[in-house]
């Protein structure tokens, strides 16, 4: 039985994990960098240990130091949160070798899902539809043009070593492809030391919809329905909601069943998310699998009444899931907005000092915060400083609650995206429930274009 958990993470997710541990009477150990000495998660943990300087390689990615602290503090398990080491297979293996329970899937499964090519091939074998494209690197421009003729434009060109948008470009013709292939390959080579490029059909008007699953060590797998996460900027989510207002009950069932089938096929354990792109006709295609807790897990908790962190700990303890699929139902509607420390139009980061912080409160409002009043937001980590989650009996009620809550969300001293969120919540297209991954481009940024 897990009695003491070290949380190898920071910010709101560290606080959120600690909260569940406290309720379950599990001791908590926080680890933090010099930049996070005053962070809320450090003070609420039962014990806390300094990792080192702010840079992630010397702090939150410092595996040796984290394992050393876990040993010193007598922790018996590690919760990796999201980001940082959460999808690092060798970390999971090293935890296991050190006699620590890693709260997540086995290392070899993380490895499989972490490789874009292998994940794609594995899912194809499990009978999950994938986006038409290449299963490996494209050798040269001539081959790229030949493949483009097969799958059809528009095509998304991706650097195999990339992730944060560098080396990614949509192309619409042979001419554009020729230019983009050379320039992106060169850029990827300069930035990542690897110029290998992949191609994937760019689905038009696609929705990003993902299925949350739970899988125990006894072969039981359930899905906790979907989250609609189409509203993104810089390929990162901004607004998420559950359930999706777009898909039909039939598609919801099919996507859930497919996710469960895929999880069983790869022998997955613990909480995970299978992300899909869904086109206008509700055809869905595997995008990737996240082998960890997601930022947006809270909206699933709100509509199902489950605590996903608690489920993760129980599964890691070897307990069977004691919920049947047919007992799970969707209650009401939940929306999450991510609060980013950034310019609301250019999306450039805005680190700095918060000298005033006021967040809304209420029965249908949940705040997950990484910061406090009178707090320095440093440039070292992700710009997300909080999450605001609202619920309602219906989507309409949830939207009304979100509008009210955002009007009472005040952060002074740094730039935030709160004004962007207010614009979105008032937008007719958002209210209609048809939000695609082009939403920010087509329905938000257009409001700022000058002639």
């Amino acid at each position, binding site marked *: 039985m897990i009695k003491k958990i070290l949380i190898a993470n920071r910010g709101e997710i560290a606080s959120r994990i600690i909260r569940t541990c406290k309720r379950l009477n599990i001791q908590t150990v926080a680890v933090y960098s010099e930049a996070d000495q005053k962070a809320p998660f450090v003070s609420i943990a039962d014990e806390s240990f300094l990792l080192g300087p702010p840079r992630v390689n010397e702090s939150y990615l410092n595996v040796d130091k984290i394992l050393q602290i876990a040993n010193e503090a007598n922790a018996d398990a590690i919760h990796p949160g999201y980001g940082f080491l959460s999808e690092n297979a060798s970390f999971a293996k090293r935890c296991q070798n050190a006699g620590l329970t890693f709260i997540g899937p086995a290392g070899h499964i993380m490895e499989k899902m972490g490789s874009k090519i292998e994940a794609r091939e594995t899912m194809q074998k499990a009978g999950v539809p994938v986006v038409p494209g290449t299963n490996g690197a494209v050798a040269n421009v001539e081959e790229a043009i030949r493949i483009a003729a097969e799958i059809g434009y528009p095509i998304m060109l991706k650097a195999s070593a990339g992730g944060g948008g560098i080396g990614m470009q949509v192309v619409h013709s042979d001419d554009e492809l020729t230019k983009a292939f050379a320039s992106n390959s060169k850029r990827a080579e300069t930035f990542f030391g690897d110029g290998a490029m992949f191609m994937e059909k760019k689905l038009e008007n696609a929705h990003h919809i993902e299925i949350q699953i739970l899988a125990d060590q006894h072969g039981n797998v359930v899905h906790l329905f979907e989250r609609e996460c189409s509203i993104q900027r*810089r390929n990162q989510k901004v607004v998420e909601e559950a359930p999706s207002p777009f898909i039909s009950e039939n598609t919801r069932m099919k996507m859930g069943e497919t996710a469960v089938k895929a999880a069983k096929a790869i022998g997955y354990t613990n909480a995970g998310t299978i992300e899909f792109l869904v086109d206008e006709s509700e055809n869905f295609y595997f995008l990737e699998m996240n082998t960890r807790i997601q930022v947006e897990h809270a909206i699933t908790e709100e509509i199902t009444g489950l605590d996903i962190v608690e489920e993760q700990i129980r599964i890691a303890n070897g307990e069977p899931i004691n919920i049947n699929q047919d007992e799970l139902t969707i209650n009401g509607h939940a929306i999450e907005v991510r609060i980013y420390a*950034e310019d609301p139009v250019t999306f*450039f*980061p*805005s*680190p700095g000092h918060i000298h005033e912080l006021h967040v809304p409160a209420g029965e249908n409002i949940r705040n997950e915060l990484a910061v406090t009043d009178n707090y320095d937001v440093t*440039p070292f*980590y*992700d*710009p997300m400083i909080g999450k605001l989650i609202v619920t309602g009996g219906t989507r309409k009620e949830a939207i009304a609650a979100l509008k009210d809550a955002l009007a009472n969300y005040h952060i002074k001293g740094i730039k935030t995206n709160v004004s962007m969120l207010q614009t979105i919540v008032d937008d007719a297209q958002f209210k209609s429930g048809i939000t695609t991954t082009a939403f920010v481009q087509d329905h938000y940024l257009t409001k700022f274009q000058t002639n």
Partner: protein
Amino acid sequence: MQEVKASMAGSVWKITVSEGESVDSGQDVVILESMKMEIPIAAEQTGTVKELKVAEGDFVNEGDVIAIIE
């Protein structure tokens, strides 16, 4: 003369030119890094790099001058 300015607060991740080097308009001069985002800062005119005001690892605020192109 053109001042190349930081478009966001962050640290200088990479400097891709050196003093005395000629640059084209649109060519990346430095790459800033902040909150996991890498932002290339490009020269807005063709010319010669007269002065680099920063070194790799330096912290810059939004609007700080990074380089001078002549």
